[in-house]
């Protein structure tokens, strides 16, 4: 256990030292400022909007903005997670950073798990902080709060933790650059699945919606994000509820407990493949 904590702290310290972290922090401050600006003008004008019947403008504006913030938070969290983990095995081995650690009596599985924990210790507080900050901005500016406060944030954090695990898995087999490209392509595939789902919902096309749903579950970080989107307007019905399902970058889709269990199983599966690959890898 002591070695696990030592390596996790090593990874945490490495993560906080990297320029990627500073860049993400800078982008976050910029994003939150622009987000506040957007909220400010949107809710200033929302009272004067005469929407079609069945649409509650403040709910629509608030949920749309928080949904947008959730996408930005997910994206920034994924950038951070990928940059913290993309070189954890093969990249660090090529630079000679890994070998002095691996020869110590701690076991490769422990080392990999610790690296994941180190990355998660940086990414999940970051995601939760940005999520709650943007939600607070919308709540204080527009006097609208999501139907579920904590669950969407936790699901976003879990989605980023999953991406960190996928990136660690990639780092066992791919060089740093190849892994970075591969993980961002996988992330992009998830986003595309969400967009297809939105289109399928709007047309409506059951086949497209069904295909997008399967793709989102194959990449459960996307399904977690969609479930989080659903949670912010879980109690919203009528036309407002329908339109919110067309939300930005992937519509809200309920996943529930089954999805959360699947995400946990998926994490275990990714970890098992990564550990098996790492244990057989010559360094």
């Amino acid at each position, binding site marked *: 256990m002591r070695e696990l904590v030592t390596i996790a702290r090593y990874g945490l310290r*490495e993560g906080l030292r990297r320029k990627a972290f500073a860049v993400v922090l800078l982008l976050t401050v910029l994003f939150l400022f622009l987000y506040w600006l957007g909220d400010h003008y949107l809710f200033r004008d929302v009272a004067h909007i005469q929407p079609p019947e069945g649409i509650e403008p403040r709910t629509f504006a608030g949920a749309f903005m928080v949904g947008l913030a959730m996408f930005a938070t997910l994206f920034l969290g994924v950038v951070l997670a990928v940059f913290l983990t993309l070189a954890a095995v093969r990249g660090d081995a090529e630079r000679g950073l890994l070998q002095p650690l691996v020869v110590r*009596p701690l076991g490769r599985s422990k080392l990999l798990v610790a690296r994941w924990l180190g990355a998660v210790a940086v990414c999940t507080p970051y995601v939760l902080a940005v999520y709650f900050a943007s939600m607070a901005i919308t709540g204080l500016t527009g006097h609208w709060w999501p139907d579920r406060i904590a669950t969407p944030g936790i699901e976003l954090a879990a989605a980023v933790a999953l991406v960190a695990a996928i990136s660690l898995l990639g780092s066992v087999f791919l060089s740093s650059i190849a892994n970075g490209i591969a993980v961002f392509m996988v992330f992009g595939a998830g986003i595309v699945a969400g967009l297809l789902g939105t289109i399928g919902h709007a047309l409506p096309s059951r086949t497209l919606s069904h295909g997008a749903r399967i793709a989102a579950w194959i990449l459960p970080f996307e399904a977690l994000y969609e479930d989080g989107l659903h949670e912010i307007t879980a109690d919203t019905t009528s036309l407002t509820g329908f339109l919110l399902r067309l939300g930005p970058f992937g519509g809200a889709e309920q996943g529930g407990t089954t999805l959360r269990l699947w995400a946990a199983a998926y994490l275990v599966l990714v970890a098992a493949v990564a550990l098996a690959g790492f244990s057989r890898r010559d360094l």
Partner: protein
Amino acid sequence: MAPALAAERLVKRYGRVEALRGVDLTVEEGELVGLLGPNGAGKSTLVKIACGLVRPSKGSAEVCGHRAGSLTARAQLGYLAELFRFPGWYTADEVLELHQKLARSDGGAAERAELLELVALSEARHRRVEGFSKGMAQRLGVAQALVGRPRLLLLDEPTSALDPVGRRTVRELLEGLRDRGVAVLLNSHLLSEIELVCDRVAILLDGRIVTAGSPAELSKPRGVEIETAAGIRTYETAGREDVPALVADLVAAGERVYGVRVLSSTLEDVYLEAVGGETS
């Protein structure tokens, strides 16, 4: 007691390339063994198998009686890789502290201070590694390998970036370790270093050990040189035992003898003969 390192019929294949083709090597406790060979001979692969970084395709390797790569085997060894790096934002002291935790060493600050003193880095104790010269980083690498008092030390090119003073420091350190019973497998291209400190030498070529023995066993007589007033006379077929008779004959013949040198082949001669001029 089990030897510090015992490799039997080790074979390692990387795809179609056979890096090791049945290597047998034993390093006893307190023994300093030098591993020589051209680039690509399999030296680093052998060392990496011993410390568990590489899995053998066939054969076995044991460290202090435990399967190489197992946690118990790794707890017995210290390793310095040929290419290694420490996180630049760590100080020398923090690097050693990190490795103390991973090696489950309870030596604390006293051990760290002693190791930094051994490699002449006491002054740089609180300096960040990113500011270190190559030689300083290599000496820190040696100190790191010694964390937790290992019974077997595996050093892959430990003096390649060192200046003559640094090399001497490491050489004296290795001699001190041998006196404490630590076994050392030293992989180096620096023949003079190996010749000076090693009890035994193994020369690898194309994944096989082609020559092994102590430097004295490996060296061959190359004649006798006698310096006289008339110049240097060389007796190519003579040996050490012939020296008294040769000197007596010269003195009887009225020559003045100023010096006698018994010639033998150096490790470099042995090496070149073994590898046949191969470089990679």
